[in-house]
């Protein structure tokens, strides 16, 4: 079957199998910023935004994304034009191996879009499904607080 998805603002058509998950389709189509890990929805590494909401792309059938807007971490920002969240992750030493970072940043983006001034607890809750085995989370949470403060400041300008 053929599906149409707007990926990172570009409308794309993909031929997919009915049982294929979004993670596999995106990676096959070159969106390698979406990382696979547990493939059971437990770890959050493969998180993308579907219509602005974080989903586990390893559990989401590609067919279900037909007609929807998908944003990957590269749609949030890339190396040439990093998003404030990505800058904050680097500045705060919030990524070590970095494998969880795309998913974690994607979840954080969804949170800040809804709640520009989250408490530490709200960040922990919103990103709870994004496992990280390297950092112990503290610097990632500080990075999100840091980015939120900066985005609020920019919004005031």
């Amino acid at each position, binding site marked *: 079957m053929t599906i149409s998805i707007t990926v990172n603002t570009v409308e794309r058509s993909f031929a997919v199998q009915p049982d294929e998950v979004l993670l596999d389709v995106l990676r*096959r189509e070159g969106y390698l910023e979406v*990382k696979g890990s547990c493939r059971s929805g437990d770890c959050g590494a493969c998180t993308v935004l579907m219509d602005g909401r974080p989903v586990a792309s390893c559990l989401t059938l590609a067919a279900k994304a037909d007609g929807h807007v998908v944003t990957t971490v590269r749609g949030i920002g890339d190396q040439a034009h990093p998003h404030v969240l*990505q800058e904050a992750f680097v500045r705060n030493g919030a990524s070590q191996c*970095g494998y969880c970072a795309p998913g974690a940043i994607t979840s954080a983006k969804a949170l800040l879009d809804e709640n520009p001034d989250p408490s530490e607890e709200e960040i922990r809750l919103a990103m709870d499904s994004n496992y*990280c085995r390297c950092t*112990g989370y503290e610097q990632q949470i500080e990075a999100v607080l840091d980015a939120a403060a900066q985005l609020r400041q920019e919004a005031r300008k």
Partner: protein
Amino acid sequence: MSIERKSFRHLTEGSYPATHVVGKSVDKVDGYALVSGAPTYTDDIAERDFPNRLHGRILTSPIANGVIASIDTSAAEALSGVRLVLTWKNTPRTFYTTAGQGWPEPSPYDNQMFTERVRFVGDRVAAVFACSRDIAEQALKLIKVSFKEEPAVLDADDAMKPGAPIVHPEDPKGAYDAAHNVAAHVDINVGNVDKALAESEITISETFQTHYAQHAPMETHTAFAYTDDMGKVVIVSSTQVPWHARRIVSRVLGLSMSKLRVVKPRMGGGFGTKQEVLIDDLVACAAIRTGLPCEIELTRKEEFVSSRTRHPMRIDMSIGCDRQGNFKALKMYVLSNTGAYGSHSLTVMSNTGSKTLPLYNKASDVRFFGDAVYTNLPVPGAYRGYGATQGYAALETTIDDLAAKLGMDPIELRKKNMIRVGEGSPIFEALGEGRQGVAQTIKSSSLPTLLDLGAEAIGWAEKRGKRVRNGHKVRGIGMSMHMQGSGIPLIDMASASIKLNEDGSYFLTMGATDIGTGSDTILSQMAAEVLGVTMDRISALSSDTDLTPFDVGAYASSTTFISGGAVVKAAKAVRNQIFAVAADILHEDLDASLVSAEPKVEWDNDQPDPILSFFHMEDGNVVSVRSGKRVSVSDVAYRAFYEVNQHQIAATQSFVSPYSPPPFAAHFVEIEVDELTGKVEILKYVAAVDCGVSINPDLVRGQIMGAVANGIGFALTEEYHFGSHGNMTNSSLFDYKILSRRDMPPTEVIVVDNYEPTGPWGAKSVAEIGINGAIPAIGNAIFDATGIRLHRTPYTADRVLAALRGKSI
């Protein structure tokens, strides 16, 4: 200097030379690539560069012990899209170890690519390579295997009993006594411990049992191989040990190293499990046989069941002392469960003693002995902490009980007996990594400060022993104390090369393996410091067996110290060559022997570097100390490359050290035990660490926090559950609970920098030590809260509740 922010205190003790890049929390060199999801991990590269590669899947054993009576792969091979099926019948029969360690290899040669015998549920039976994962998966189901099942040994305590099933009847080379399931044995005596115990006024003996656990790196073991245009087999692998992987695969497949290259790209974590060569042999073999690129990416289930785990250990710990608490005797026996294969069996067990007992060097009589036994269970290997974690679980809880017996404060008891600057321990020399060790004298330690700061941060004086109640919840606090090492002395070797570019920037190549720790960053910082440039002037490439010089790899907490030493030496050698050209330009004298002398890591530390009395580096310039004149390094490069006495300014240096300076740590925890449910909640955790000079404080903090999180998971929630035939029943991240953001308790990291004179820019290691504290500190806090001592981990609610009921009933 003191930096304070929420949950992180960074202090220094003593003084050390001023630095401009070292000691700064510069951005990771790969930071922006990682946060934007650049295609830098193994599977990303495979997908991008080899979309038509073959995908490998592994058929694993459903039984714990037995023989493959017959195996028929014809239906699988006939399936459209299947290109290769590997079994014991068509693969090399070489015996080897999957443990990626130095040479001669200390682990027994008890492994083959495939064998007729399976030894645990999850052991390799066959591998299929096909055009897609789905087809490979379907093909696995078409392989017809008939097993002749045999009785299995599923408990380490049974392994050495007469009549126990023998896991390795073939008597592998390097196994201590395979006929009795003993993969490795160690027995180290200093003095006469039994006599000393008998003569001690106070003695205590306890037995502690630790459990199976998983590293759970976010990226599972992944590797692919292809044959390049010149006929070379290139393995791209998520490995901690590229050179050991090349050596092992070369031997197993009978390939010349000139025809084999191992490349490690960015890596999604290792924690020890990728110090194992688990799939590199398969993808290389398949790439050769099929002529096509071949990849294996382990599933999360395979990562749990078939890769590597932490050695569960039963530890019998005895301490003898006088009534004042002065230690006289330490006796530790370890029964280590090494599962179906003896990977790291000897060395992990050795470290259980060698990284713990020297911390209490006042004991005159010490014995450390143990057996690592084969069972038909999943295979342990290297795991952050490397046996010391298990050793401290027993040692630090026994000391806590001894303090109670003596009526002493546990911190005071530790202070009385701990190793101090200027002191050694006979254990350092008696016990190394599976062989004799190297004598060590402690040259730097902030341990007394760590104990004081940690006690203050947790509120030791006010809270200890108070058992504050909140309904059915009761609070307690506990602590523990630790050391680790910094590389393996006189064994671990690293090397690095630095080339100068015409614009005064540098290209740094090194074997050092950045597994996510940030070693490419901190090693670049060390080079930038020596060369007097900012970070943007250093370009680093690491971990490619063809393009970078040798390094043993990322393990044994060696990279900062050993690889850092190599980088510092290479940078000094290049700097000295630059000085020589600068001297020509400035018409000043410079003794050629100073230029060609092998640089020392210690120079600039506790001895002045003799060449620095002539010239020094400053902002990309060479400055003459005598005349004050300066010339830019770029001018030096142009002259050397193009104008006069043309030559490449470059150097390669290696570093191996007789020292392995231990980092030190003191962990403190306040908990609340729910007496109705048995749940242990951590209210606050404090990790105070001395890792020498923090080359990059943010990355140091991250290492400690990550290790603490992993340690708390190991202490409270992470555990393998087994079915009746040794089958793991919770092999997913849903059923095996690692800490999430909300699980992570408030944690304060206190780093006390203390200049280590033998380390590069004063650094020691930090990667492993932080995982050792959670089990003993939490166990001691449970004891403080309830008076109950748990001798078996993890401290799950059901175990704590059972113990509480045992007490009250």
